[in-house]
């Protein structure tokens, strides 16, 4: 099990929390969602980046199932 899998699994919940926080700020705080939405893209990008960094080197794609030992 690699960290990349973990980060990929965590991506959905983290995006959802971010969305919730932005909407809460929209309702109670200074900044409207219309101004803060790009943060969603930034968070998504950071998560993708982290996933890529955590993925094993070599050909293949991030999140590719790892082979077992022979």
């Amino acid at each position: 099990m690699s960290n990349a899998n973990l980060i990929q699994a965590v991506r959905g919940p983290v995006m959802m929390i971010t969305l919730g926080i932005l909407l809460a700020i929209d309702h109670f705080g200074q900044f409207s969602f219309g101004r803060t939405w790009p943060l969603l893209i930034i968070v998504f990008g950071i998560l993708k980046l982290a996933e890529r960094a955590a993925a094993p080197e070599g050909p293949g794609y991030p999140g590719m199932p790892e082979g077992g030992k022979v």
Partner: protein
Amino acid sequence: MRRASIVGPLILIAVGVLFLARNLFPWLPLFDFLADYWPFILIAWGVLRLAEILFWAVRRRALPVNGISGGEWVLVILLCVIGAGAHAAHHSSWFPNGRMRIGGLEMFGEAFDYPLAQQTVAAPKNARIVIESFRGNARIAGSDGDKVVVSGRKSIRALKQENANTADQASPLQLVVNGDRVILRTNQDRVGDSPSRITEDLEITVPRGASLEAVGRYGDFDITDLGGNVEVVSDNAGVRLQNIGGSVRVDTRRSDIVRVVNVKGAVELKGSGSDLELQDVGGEVTIAAKYSGTVQFRALAQPVRFESDRMEFAAQSVPGQMRMSLSDLNASNVTGPIRLNARSKDVQILGFTQSIDLTVDRGDIELRPAAAVAKMDVHTRSGDIDLALPDQAKVQLAATTDRGEITNDFNPAFEGRSEGRGATLRGSGDGPRVVLTTGRGSITVRKASETVAAVPAVAPKPPAVPRAPSSLKPVEQ
């Protein structure tokens, strides 16, 4: 096999609890609560899911490929749409009636009218009239007698005459004297599941010295000639007060108009509404409320404080007038010190005295102090500033624009300088400090005598206040 998430069952339980609470405690403002706090459902959902996944990762269980499945995202989007709609409906005063009435039975059936027999009780001295939770229009007037007299009619919307009759009998109008209080009960809540079907139009005559506490949920209050204090709490009503001897407190949720004319005591306003008119108030005015329409002040003798989430205004008194909408503020003849803090407003204040402290995010500012000039602090992030000073005024001026020009038609001795795309203008000497800054916009300092329209010495006479209609209209739902 991977275990299913814990969040699904939790959401089911939460929805069940919510509906149960709605059925058991119908008076709880659950809708209002959810309209504001629904984003925290998303946060809680995400946090639970995150904790679960981390827990699985620590236990070295198989992880799901996606933390949140496509189906869940569909639910989330649905929640966002409903939540945003509820929030918008909850926070806008133009939304009819504020609450969505689904299953609008009100539209069917017909209205049955029942005259209310006139009721009279002798009022104790300095009586407090209490009107309990009430739906309909009420006209309350002080008179010379010492009796409380109530008359009017009741309108019940029902599918059948029998249903209306039952509802009528279940909701008698009661007038009860309790100590120094005279309580008017409409008992509209006693009727069935949909109390909104009953409305009453009441004419209430009370002794002139009485004070009043009224709680209404729908309909207008029209209150005149009372010597005591008046307190009105209303969910959805126009409130008109005239000739009140005591102080006035009004708390509204979604009123189309609040009009307060000729009050001897203090005025305190809370809540939200559309239009506000205040005129001839002898006491202090404190407003902590949002008005989406036009706010007008005239002849306020004591300090005025107005705060909402978008702006803040304070002045020592407003002998002249002030008119304010979402985008503009026009005032003339205002006694300072004046403090104004607003996000986006074009501001014009003519003929003010004492100091002024003015900050707006966006908006043009036009100022013409009265004969005596005091300290001025004027800031805008984006907008032009136009200051017309009395010809002989002496000031220490510091004007700065980061991007724009400064025109000096006041005193050629002032030192102007261009700096990059901006400019500064300095004038030293004795006299009060005048600081003008704009992030982006031009600044003009000129002589008042050379400006086109001179300041009117006296505020124009306000138009007469319209009389209330002599007969009451039924509430339209």
